[in-house]
C-alpha cells in the first residue's frame, strides 16, 4: 500500500485539529484538537519510518506520546483551575493577560 494515503490522512487529521483550535471556544475541545494534531504528526513520523526503513521516526513518535501525556496532565490541571474560578471553560473569556 502506498504511504501517500497515510500522509494524506495525517494531513487531514492535522488540519481538523488546527481548525478545531482556531474555531472552538471550549478549552476542552481545543485541547482535544491539539491531541489530534500531535497524533497526526505521529502518524506522519511512523509512515516516514516505514518508508525509509529505519526506526528514528518510531522513536520520535514515542517522544511525542510522552510529551503529550505530560502536557495533558499540566493542561487539564490548568483548565480545571480556570473552570473553578470563572465557572466557564471558554478560552476567549480568559483574556486578561494582554497589553
Amino acid at each position, binding site marked *: 500500500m502506498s504511504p501517500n494515503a497515510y500522509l494524506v490522512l495525517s494531513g487531514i487529521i492535522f488540519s481538523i485539529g488546527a481548525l478545531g483550535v482556531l474555531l472552538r471556544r471550549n478549552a476542552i475541545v481545543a485541547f482535544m484538537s491539539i491531541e489530534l494534531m500531535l497524533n497526526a504528526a505521529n502518524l506522519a513520523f511512523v509512515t516516514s519510518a516505514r518508508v525509509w526503513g529505519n526506526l528514528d521516526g518510531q522513536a520520535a513518535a514515542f517522544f511525542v506520546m510522552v510529551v503529550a501525556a505530560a502536557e495533558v496532565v499540566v493542561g487539564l490541571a490548568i483548565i480545571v483551575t480556570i473552570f473553578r474560578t470563572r465557572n466557564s471553560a471558554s*478560552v476567549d473569556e480568559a483574556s486578561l493577560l494582554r497589553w
Partner: protein
Amino acid sequence: MIALAIALPALSAALLLSLGRRTNIWGPYLSIAASTSAFLVGLWQFLLMTNRPTEERASITTIYEWLVVPGTNFKINFGLQLDQLSVSFVLLITFVGTLIHIYSLGYMSHDENKRRFFAYLNLFVAAMLLLVLADNYLLLYVGWEGVGLASYLLIGFWQHKPSAAVAAKKAFVANRVGDFGLSLAIMMMFIIFGSVSFIDVNASVSGSPSWVPLTIGLLLLLAACGKSAQFPLQSWLLDAMEGPTPVSALIHAATMVTAGVYLIVRSASIFNASTFAQNTVIVIGVISLLMGAVIGAAKDDIKKSLAGSTMSQIGYMVLAAGLGPIGYVFAILHLITHGFFKAVMFLGAGSVMHATNDNVDMRRFGGLSKSMIFTTITFFIGYLAIIGIPPFAGFYSKDHIIEAALSHSWAAGIAALFGAGLTAFYMTRMVVMTFFSKPRWEEKVHPHESPISMTLPMIILSIGAATIGIGLTQNNVFEHWLEPVTGFSEPHPPLPILTITYITLGVVALGVIIGISLNRKIPKVAPTKVTLFTTAARNDLYGDLLNETLLMRPGMKLSKFLTIFDRGVIDGFYSGLGLITGSISSRLRRSETGFVRSYALSIVLGTAILVLAILVVRL
C-alpha cells in the same frame, strides 16, 4: 645641596597647610625661618660658585629620573641647573622674599588667617625657586604653574571680597592663555629636538630649519606675555592689586611677573636663531612699556599706578631681552634692580595704607612725609631709583637698555627714552600726591609710622635700591658674570654713550618738572572733564573692554549657540530616535490581545509561511 632651598619652603608650606590652626602661633616664624634658610643656602652656593673658575661655575644636579617611558627616548630628569643666571634669581627671590616675609609679620598682624598667608608665601618661594633652578622646560613648567597657583591663592586671599575673588580668577585665566603657549612650545621641542632639557635644546636649535625657532620663540613669548603681564595679556595685573600689599610687592612686582623675562633670556639660543621672533619681542616690550606708563600716569589708586609702572618696567626688560646678546644682561640687571626698588615702593605703599585705614586713593593722601619719615625716605629712594637718577640703581640698568635699544634701531631707542620721561612723570605725580602737597585725608585718619617689622625690610631694600646698580656695574662685573650663560656683545649706539646719558637725564628732568607743575593743586575727587586720552588711560586703555568684546562676548555667543545646537540638533536626533521607537512599539503591542486563539492563528500562519518558504527555496 641647592635642592634644600626649594625643599625647606615647600616643607614649611606643607606643614602649615596640613597642620592647620595648631600652627597659628609659631607658623609665621617657621615660614620666615624657611625662607631665610633658603636664602642662606643660595648665598652659600653663590659663594662656592664665585670661588670656582668661570668655566666650572655652572653645574647640574640630577636628583632623580623623573619621567621615563620605557622603549622610547622620553626621559626627563628632575635636575637642578645652578649657573650664574639662576643663582642671581635665587638670591633675588630669597632675599626680597625673606624681607617681605618679615614685613608681612607687621602688615598681616591683625589678620586671622595669617598662617595660611605665610604658607602660601612659602609655597610661592618654593615654586619660584623650582622655576629658575629647573634644568629642563618641563620642570620649569611645574614651577611656572606653581607660581601661578600661589599667585591665584594670594590675589584671592581675601576671598570674602568679590572683587578679590574675581581678580584671582582673571589672573588665573589670563595666565592660562600664556601657559598654553608654553606647553605647546614644550611639546614642539620634544617632537623636533627629542628632548626638553636646556642643554639639548640649545645644542640642536642651530641645526633646525628656520620656522622651528620662530614658532617656538613666538609660543614662548606668548607664555612670557601671560606671566609678565605684557600686551596683549596685561589686563590681569592691575586687578591683581586686590591681593594683600606684600603679595603685590613680592609676586606682582619683584619676582613672579619677571618669570617671562627669565624664560626669554633662558631661551636665548632660540630667540637668537630667529630675527622675526626677536623683533616681535621688541615690539611687545615697547607697546607694554608705553601702555604701562600711560596707565600708571592716569590711575589714582596708588597700587594700580604702581602696577602700571611694573608692567612698564617689565616692558623695558622684555625690550632688552628682544635685543639679543646686547640686551640679555641688561634685561636681567634691570630685573634685579627693579626687584629692589619696586618692592620698596610697594612696601611703602602698603605702609601708607596701613597708616590711613587701608585707603589707596592718592587724592586722599598728601603731606604724609611729616608723620611717616622712614616710609617717605625709603619710598623716595625707590623713586629716585626708578626714574634713573645716578647713582641710584635704576639709572645704570635703564640707561644701558636705552643704549642697547638705540643701537638696535632709532624707533626702539626713542620709545625707551620716551618711556623714561613718562616714568619720571608718573612717579613724580605719585610722590607729590602721597608724601608732599597739602593733606587731603579722610576724617578720623591719623597717619603714623609703621612698626619696625615693616620699616626694617623697607630700609634694607632701599639700601639695595640705592647701591645695587653701581655695585653690579662697577668694572662691568655683571656683564662678565652672566656672559657665559647668556652671551654678551657690546652695544654700539649711533650716539656717544655720554650724550645718550645726558639726553636721558634731560628727558627724565623734563618729566619730573611736568609732574610737579601739573600737580600743584590736587582736587580730592578726580576731575571728570578730562580729555579722551585720560579717560582711556583711566580705563586701562580699554584692555578689559577689548578682551570683553573680542573674546568674552563672542565666546559667550559661541557657547550659547553650541548649547542650542547640542540641545536641538544632537539631543534632538537621539531623542527623536527614542520617540519613534517608542511610538512604533506602543502601536505594535496592541497585537497582544490576550485572545489565545488569535495567537494560535498567528502561529499557524507563521508555520505555513515557513513551510512555503522552505518549499520555494527547495524548488
